[in-house]
């Protein structure tokens, strides 16, 4: 999207972070996502989080798969290397990158299709290895880029733009991550920057795999009747039948949740999602409690948000593998090659 004015990131003229950088230094290319797409809101929060943490942009690496969400890596931190790989396989690339250079700050961006369909195995195994990275799952219940098929996180009963009803139970990335042993699990909403930014910052500083499931409405392919969560929506849908390629210009949905309370957010299609933020006295270090809280919220038809679980003393992949503290890419060749004398010595064993 290049010619329509976007809800731009504001630049309070002089605000600088500890590195003396402004928010602008954390921005990326112009987004080409649809106006009002939740993913763009998340991008804004990511920019804010990196800015506030004063991470030198070139010391970060941005990785993603394929999808609208996965394009978002291009829209922040121009001065960081980006890698837009293949669909569903970003965790492997991130794992390899981290194995090679443990000193960079890794952020992975993925979608629910990318993470829960084609990429489910890779996500679970990256969690199991506790690869030190922030993994942002921009969850909209559909495959945006391929035009609105249901993803594995679509709710039962959701009706697609084409009029199909989803009958498969959703895979909840948060429960899944907890089950396979994630050490940092959070959920938030794209429109709630007040909640999201601190979560992202916490995830970036966590040593290990930090997964943040961010509910991120797809304005284009959720813009239809029939969502389970909806009350009747108002716009005339008279043009719907003809204009299959028409994408209305929407504005970003924002809403801040009250801690300790349930917040109703109205989506572009008029439906309502109830967000339940963890309470002030919630203990995020108890995996069982986290799972219970999740299930309790689900039972009430609410979406639990907040930092749901954190294992602070977790060992990351490098701890498991007992790798040296300095990045492997910094080890000089002389320390890696055993040399000719060793080779000669070794070969005595092969005689």
């Amino acid at each position, binding site marked *: 999207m290049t010619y329509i004015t976007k809800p731009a990131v504001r630049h309070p003229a002089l605000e600088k972070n500890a590195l003396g950088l402004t928010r602008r230094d954390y921005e990326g290319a112009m987004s080409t996502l649809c106006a009002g797409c939740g993913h763009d809101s998340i991008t804004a929060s990511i920019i804010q989080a990196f800015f506030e943490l004063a991470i*030198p*942009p*070139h*010391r970060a*690496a941005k*990785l993603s798969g394929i999808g609208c969400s996965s394009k978002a*890596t*291009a829209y922040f931190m*121009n*001065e*960081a*290397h*980006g*890698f*837009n*790989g*293949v669909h569903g*396989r970003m*965790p*492997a*690339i*991130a*794992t*390899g*990158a*981290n*194995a*090679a*250079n443990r*000193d*960079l700050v890794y952020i992975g961006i993925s979608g629910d299709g990318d993470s829960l369909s084609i990429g489910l*195995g*890779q996500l*679970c*195994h990256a969690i199991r*290895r506790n690869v030190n990275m922030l993994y942002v799952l921009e969850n909209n219940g559909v495959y945006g880029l391929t035009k609105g098929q249901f993803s594995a996180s679509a709710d039962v009963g959701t009706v697609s733009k084409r009029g199909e009803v989803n009958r498969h139970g959703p895979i909840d990335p948060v429960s899944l991550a907890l089950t396979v042993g994630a050490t940092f699990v959070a959920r938030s909403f794209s429109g709630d920057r007040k909640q999201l930014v601190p979560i992202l910052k916490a995830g970036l500083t966590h040593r290990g795999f930090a997964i943040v499931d961010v509910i991120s409405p797809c304005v284009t392919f959720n813009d239809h009747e029939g969502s389970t969560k909806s009350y009747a929506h108002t716009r005339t849908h008279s043009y719907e039948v003809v204009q299959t390629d028409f994408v209305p210009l929407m504005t970003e949905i924002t809403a801040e949740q009250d801690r300790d309370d349930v917040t109703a957010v109205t989506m572009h299609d008029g439906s309502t999602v109830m967000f339940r933020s963890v309470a002030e006295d919630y203990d995020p270090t108890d995996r069982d409690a986290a799972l219970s809280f999740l299930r309790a919220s689900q039972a009430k038809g609410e979406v639990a948000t907040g930092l749901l679980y954190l294992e602070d003393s977790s060992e990351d*992949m*490098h701890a498991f*593998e*007992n*790798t*040296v*503290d300095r990045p*492997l*890419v910094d*080890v000089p*060749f002389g*320390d*890696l*090659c*055993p*040399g*000719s004398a*060793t*080779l*000669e010595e*070794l*070969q005595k064993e*092969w*005689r």
Partner: protein
Amino acid sequence: MANDDIDRANDFALKIGTVNGTGSTSANAMLMQVIFRMGVPVSGKNLFPSNIQGLPTWYEIRVNKHGHLARTPDFDVMVAMNAETYARDIEEVVSGGYVIYDSTHPLDEELMRDDVTFFGVPFAKMCLERFKGARVRILMKNIAYVGTLAALLDMDVDLIREMLAEKFASKPKLIDSNMQAISLGYDYARENFECPLPVRMEPMDATSDSVILTGNTAAALGCVYAGATVGAWYPITPATSIMDAFKEFCGRFRKDPETGKNLYCIVQAEDELAAIGIVIGASWCGARAFTNTSGPGLSLMNEFLGLAYYAEVPAVVFDVQRAGPSTGMPTRTQQGDLFTVVYASHGDTKHIALFPADPEECFYFAVSAFDIAERFQTPVFVVSDLDIGMNDWMVPRLEWDEDYTPDRGKVLTAKDLEAMEVFHRYEDVDGDGIPYRTLPGVHAKGAYFTRGSGHDRYGRYTEDTEAYKDVVDRIARKIESAAAAVPEPEVRMAIDAPFGLVTIGACRGAVLEALEQLEADDIEISYMRVRGFPFHPSVGQFINDHEITFVVEQNRDGQLLKLLTVETGASKDKMTSVKYYGGFSLSAHHVVQGVTEALERAGRVPAGKV
């Protein structure tokens, strides 16, 4: 072949039939080693089933003073330890040969052959009497046949003792029990049979500059020496032992002296898709990274390989080929992945590949693979096979050039970047098709966006025809230019020979032996072994310079011949296919037969020659 009239010292083959999981591996290794230490060229081929315990398994040893160490199917001596395969094993011995079997139970009369000498040794009975415990008895039966062979073949028993002493330096009791088993077999043979046989050992001095090792061990060592720090893989026969060996070597040579921590990171991935992804990620970050796999894993890597090709990320992949298609015969060898390797992934792609012939080349080519991958910023395959990878080969001692420095290719440093106005990732600055790259974290000016989607020379997303072609055309040129960087073909020109032969990989030994045999029949053939892809310009020339060129390879579809046809200037009418793809290692007789049949078809063999 076995014939009392002829002195068969240091020129024979023996085969041992046992049951999988009964521990015969070390007995066979011991046999190899004693022959080797007696200074005589030797090779071993392990024929094992895709099973853990209970199925028949064989080990073949060839002893050849001339250094012909390819597989031969003519066995002079058979050690038949598996009653289940007696029939087949006895049938396989050459006329005039010898069969050693466990006479604890009598041999079925039906199986007896007049033209073969049978040596019954009561291995089970002797071990039952001498040793305690089922486990030890089973193991010692195997050691005992080593003793019997030592007597019959005149092996140096002192050497065996010496070897055991080295091996069990820390467990002296084991030296003793093993020597007891050796003596059981040895003494029984000396007492009951006329020793030694005409096929027998004689000390030589032809192995002092050699070592015995497998291609997978050598490849792993090459990765260590090349400075690879990240290995990612998923277990698969016959590739597994590369990473096993890499891990072992790293454990010995790659500990940080101060902290004892690892100067490497090995990730056992959840599958091959992840394994190659990890390699790509690590290479992108600047590490030398590799994965090892075989056919099924290679197939799974297809999508990622196209990404690495197009986004120009180095990667080193060891493909240890096994018999396909599909799961195929996982413990049999073949050269069936040539097409998959060279054209892996959808769309227009072409990949650089190196084709080692033996463990020695596995070592050196492993090192080259990293250099070439980084220089050309693309995946490089080291294409070996089960025969090279898992069998015991005698090869010249490996050497290391202390002056070696890794060729990291065109990687810009922070200083370079600082001095630059602007960096464009995919620009052909030097006109050689190879752009400059930067590593994450080095400098803000080096940042760019790596992607498998359409991009222009600046790394920007594009759907524009010219911008797209600019990049893919340059990549095509880049890959073509690698023909000069891969190992040049190995060539042995026969003077004025009308015929040529082109081969690849593990076929080498059998082909060279066959060429000697053919030469003895006055059939002169020039020899070329391709060692890298894209092919060197001399390859097409070689074919065109001969009237007929035989293309010898181990797959059903003549993949090498097809590649030569489309990827060199060679005329396809000049090539004739000689193929063997039954799953065992190629033998000279396959080549001789294929070549002579082709010559007969072409009316080119002097009558009565063959």
